[in-house]
């Protein structure tokens, strides 16, 4: 019975067999980090504060992520280990989880804006742990070495949460309102660190996958 339950989870774990899920998350996080960094470290009249720039940038980023992951899947993954399309109910759950995470981030941002960083540290850590739990459920259950990545994600969140306020405020940049500078700096730094870890971890997964999984010699069937 346990083997059946374990087999039922296999297709969901297959999503990141090639590291593409992590690469996508890392690229998205890094894309938003660059955008927010440019916005917070440029003058208010700069092009990075224009609504059109935001639309074009997010459009290009989304298109790049969509087609980039699709190219890796169709050129590398599907010819090697096969194609899977997921049920819509799973996609609905993904949206529900994404909504809950977004709500948690917004709540944390609000908490940070009302209180100094020190008092809001638990909220920051809880938000981070929710993300790490999602990572463990989605990725780390498939490959034991990903538990190290989950540990590094957790440790980096703890270190960032306890960084001095002056450091976080300096990372946030001059365009951030005074009440939001510490939270802004903390989220910006977390976004950069986690995106980098995700890109490295996804890159290693892709390398291992390509090295260990040769293309079948003849046609699919």
């Amino acid at each position: 019975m346990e083997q059946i339950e374990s087999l039922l989870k296999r297709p969901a774990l297959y999503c990141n067999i090639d590291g593409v899920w992590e690469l996508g998350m890392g690229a998205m996080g890094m894309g938003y980090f660059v955008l927010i960094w440019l916005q917070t470290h440029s003058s208010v009249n700069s092009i990075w504060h224009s609504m059109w720039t935001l639309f074009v940038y997010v459009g290009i980023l989304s298109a790049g992520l969509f087609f980039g992951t699709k190219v890796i899947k169709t050129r590398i993954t599907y010819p090697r280990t096969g194609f899977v399309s997921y049920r819509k109910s799973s996609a609905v759950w993904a949206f529900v989880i994404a909504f809950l995470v977004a709500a948690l981030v917004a709540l944390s941002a609000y908490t940070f804006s009302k209180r100094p960083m020190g008092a809001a540290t638990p909220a920051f850590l809880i938000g981070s742990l929710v993300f790490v739990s999602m990572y463990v459920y989605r990725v780390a259950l498939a490959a034991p070495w990903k538990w190290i990545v989950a540990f590094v994600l957790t440790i980096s969140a703890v270190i960032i949460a306890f960084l001095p306020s002056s450091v976080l405020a300096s990372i946030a940049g001059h365009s951030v309102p005074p009440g939001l500078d510490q939270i802004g700096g903390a989220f910006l730094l977390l976004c950069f660190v986690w995106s980098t870890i995700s890109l490295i971890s996804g890159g290693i997964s892709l390398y291992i996958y390509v090295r260990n999984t040769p293309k079948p010699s003849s046609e699919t069937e």
Partner: protein
Amino acid sequence: MNHQIQSIAELDRIIHEPGRLMIVTLLYSVDQADFLYLQYETGMNRGTLSSHISRLEQAEYVKVEKTFRGKVPQTLLRLTRMGRKSFERYRKNLREAL
């Protein structure tokens, strides 16, 4: 007859075969998957996998669609509504039997 023994007697024999059980379990979690994916996950050779799929298709538990990915033939498989219900019943009976 004892309820537990009754549950064992009611196990679907088409699904109960280990190879077919793997196929049905994998297909239950997805919308559709191709032949290569099932081969990768189950570790079965083409002949064995094809024969199990034919048996499941005969029982109308699996729908098979032959298509092309570029110039390469691709066999897509999905569980039918009947296959899905049968697998749910099988899991329930197995749980009761254990």
